[in-house]
């Protein structure tokens, strides 16, 4: 089933608008109007979602600000079957988040239209940061992670999302017979030799770049000497924080092994639930929201949007998905609002800085029970 024409036109209009050039108020107003239509559509398509929206303290039809609209916490996308606004036969692909061991990943369903918009959204944003040219694409990952599958992880999705910038794709990691991943140094040095004068795009998950590329090359004392590389990375800092690798140490390490200047290394924030939107760091170290998206940072105590300079829970908003209700998603990340209007880099609209994952609760208390004894198979059995 196709989406209503006015929604399709609205999305196209936002996608075609100047990426970071719209007047912030005008942008928020047009997003609010479009998101209301999308929410109404989602309510028609999914009764469970309608139940959620109808219980929201503010009626979204009459909401005055984007922050008043009903947002879903990111954990809601872990449900099985996944939350969908399309029929099963319309699902083209399912994206899964990168959950750590023991955690349930999020699963979002994409139909052809949403998948197309996802690619367009990411491409438009990245183009603004690295330019439109196609170039050799060095993937710091194994080739198995980029194969097109019906169900695809966050790493694969991110790698594929940058594919439109590629003239050729080279994966520099390989899996040995023991199942361990390691660097294919011979292949990498061969490519580096060819790419010395060329613009190159490299991408990998932050901790993969560090552990599988930078550390091995540093140990061997190898410099690739690809000064025109643009290294994009994403996936968060949690694992590197555990190893006390700061952002500065990471950038210095990556720059030294590629033989490039540190400003050619760009961290971006993105999540599968927020399809088609990524948030690269600008040269001032801030993240920006494109014309088809918004970020609301909420005070954990009140859930109201915070003022400039304050931190809170990140809510991402996007008009792009129509195959699942991922318009307004409360993440489990924290961020600080830098400005609501303009960044010195010239990009307009909300700018923010990522401030890590929501810390785990310190105090749980004597009422902290995940489950009943019976569900653990340890009931007293008296009533059985």
């Amino acid at each position, binding site marked *: 089933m196709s989406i209503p024409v006015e929604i399709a036109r609205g999305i196209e209009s936002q996608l075609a608008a100047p990426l970071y050039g719209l007047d912030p108020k005008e942008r928020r107003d047009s997003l609010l109007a479009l998101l209301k239509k999308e929410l109404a559509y989602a309510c028609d398509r999914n009764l469970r979602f309608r139940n959620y929206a109808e219980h929201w303290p503010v009626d979204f039809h009459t909401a005055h600000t984007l922050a008043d609209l009903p947002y879903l916490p990111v954990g809601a996308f872990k449900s099985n079957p996944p939350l969908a606004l399309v029929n099963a036969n319309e699902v083209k692909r399912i994206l899964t988040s990168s959950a750590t061991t023991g955690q349930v990943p999020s699963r979002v369903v994409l139909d052809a239209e949403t998948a197309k918009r996802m690619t367009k959204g990411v491409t438009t944003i990245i183009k603004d940061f690295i330019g439109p040219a196609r170039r050799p694409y060095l993937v710091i990952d194994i080739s198995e992670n980029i194969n097109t599958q019906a169900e695809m992880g966050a790493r694969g999705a991110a790698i594929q999302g940058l594919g439109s910038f590629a003239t050729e794709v080279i994966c520099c990691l390989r899996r040995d017979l023991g199942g361990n991943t390691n660097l294919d140094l011979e292949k990498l040095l061969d490519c580096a030799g060819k790419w010395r004068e060329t613009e190159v795009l490299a991408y990998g998950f932050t901790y993969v770049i560090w552990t599988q590329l930078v550390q091995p090359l540093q140990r061997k004392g190898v410099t690739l000497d690809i000064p025109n590389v643009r290294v994009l990375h994403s996936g968060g800092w949690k694992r590197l924080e555990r190893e006390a690798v700061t952002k500065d140490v990471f950038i210095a390490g990556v720059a030294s092994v590629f033989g490039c200047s540190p400003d050619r290394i760009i961290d971006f924030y993105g999540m599968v639930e927020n399809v088609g939107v990524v948030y690269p760091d600008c040269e001032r170290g801030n993240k920006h929201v494109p014309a088809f998206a918004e970020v609301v940072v909420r005070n954990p105590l009140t859930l109201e949007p915070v003022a400039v300079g304050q931190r809170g829970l990140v809510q991402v908003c996007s008009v792009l998905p129509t195959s699942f209700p991922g318009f307004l998603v409360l993440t489990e990340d924290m961020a600080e609002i830098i400005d609501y209007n303009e960044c010195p880099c010239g990009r307009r609209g909300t700018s923010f800085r990522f401030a890590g994952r929501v810390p785990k609760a310190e105090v749980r208390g004597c009422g902290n029970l995940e489950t009943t004894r*019976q569900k653990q198979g340890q009931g007293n059995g008296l009533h059985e």
Partner: protein
Amino acid sequence: MNDLMLNPAVHSPQEITWAAKQVREIAREKEIAPNTVLEVFEQWAAALDSRELREVPGLAFLRLWLRRGTLEPILLRELGADFLHGGWQEDGRARLRAFPLGVVGHWPAGNVEIQPILSLTCALLGGNVCLVRVPGGLVEITQQIMEKLQEVDRRGLLTERTFMASFDRSRTDMHEAMAQAVDGAMIWGGAEAVSQVRKLPFPHWARVVVFGPRLSVAAMDAETWGDRAERLSWCRRVARDVWQFEQRSCSSPQTLFLEQGAGCDPDEFVDDLRQALQEENRAHPRGQIEPSLTSEICLARALWLLEDAANRAVFSASPDWTILLGRGTEIPKPTQGRTLSVLLVDDLSEVISKFDGTVQTLGLAVKSAEREEKFARAAGHNGVDRVVKMGRMHLFSSPWDGVDLIRPMVRLVRHVPSQE
């Protein structure tokens, strides 16, 4: 302040071992009668009636707890009248007398502000000396309360018997040193914390008593909540129980079961409950919240409404309070943070029959005494340790978790006179 009594931060296991040695010496040299302890407690209760402590959650209750009128009946019930005066109790041809275990270690939970003190008082009443590990977030409050004890306990009768320390929960070496030094332990807390403490290398003779982790529920029969005149006041009672300790206490109601009856309108009930929660929020607004709790509250709301289109919910735009309304006899996974599941059931007996030992307290609002008796009996049979009136779910008393509070930390010595 007595150096031995409260060391907000200790840095090495040796400090704990040394302190344990000191208090053990005191226990050997100086016996203390429960009556003497009660006298100091009475003065302590009076000293706690001060302006600077008024905002400490649970302090009004602590003052009440420390009164002779509260504790003497508990001592009488647990240990008998002779124990109060340090005497022997006749037991047929023999006689019995309670003696302290010795050094008692306390591992209170971090969610109840006065719990380090409550735990301490139980062991002191048994004549013990104590090592108390104060959770990081409670050091300031505990210190304020202990300063009041020092003001009234001029001879140091109780303060010299107490060593309090705060160290990070990850300092296994400190926990181990404390565990190795004790003859008894009182452990309070959540599943993870309790499991960690239980694994510590206690001496084989140490008596270990665990309070928690448990959860609690409330239940109302149709006659009670169908009574419009009384409904709001019952809602206020359950709101008070929900509010205290951010619902992180083992005695906090996580679910309210409402028995359906003719003429009972759940919408009217939810309206009253909403009003009660809003009033409680105005009277006791949150000053802060952990972001992870906000996330959990938002997720609980969403999952409830997405799970079944028939489920309903009422909640504030902030994370201040949440009512999740539906049908069912199973206790949903607790969210805490003032999130109350309200489940409609046909018969409360059906709910109670499913309890499995997880439920500590059942808060009841039942019109018929006969039915209440039936419910209390069924609840006890199914592992519930406290059946109380809704609105009084947190009223700390003995027994707790089905266990006496003072008796586990004493030894009952039996003397059969040799000349008999």
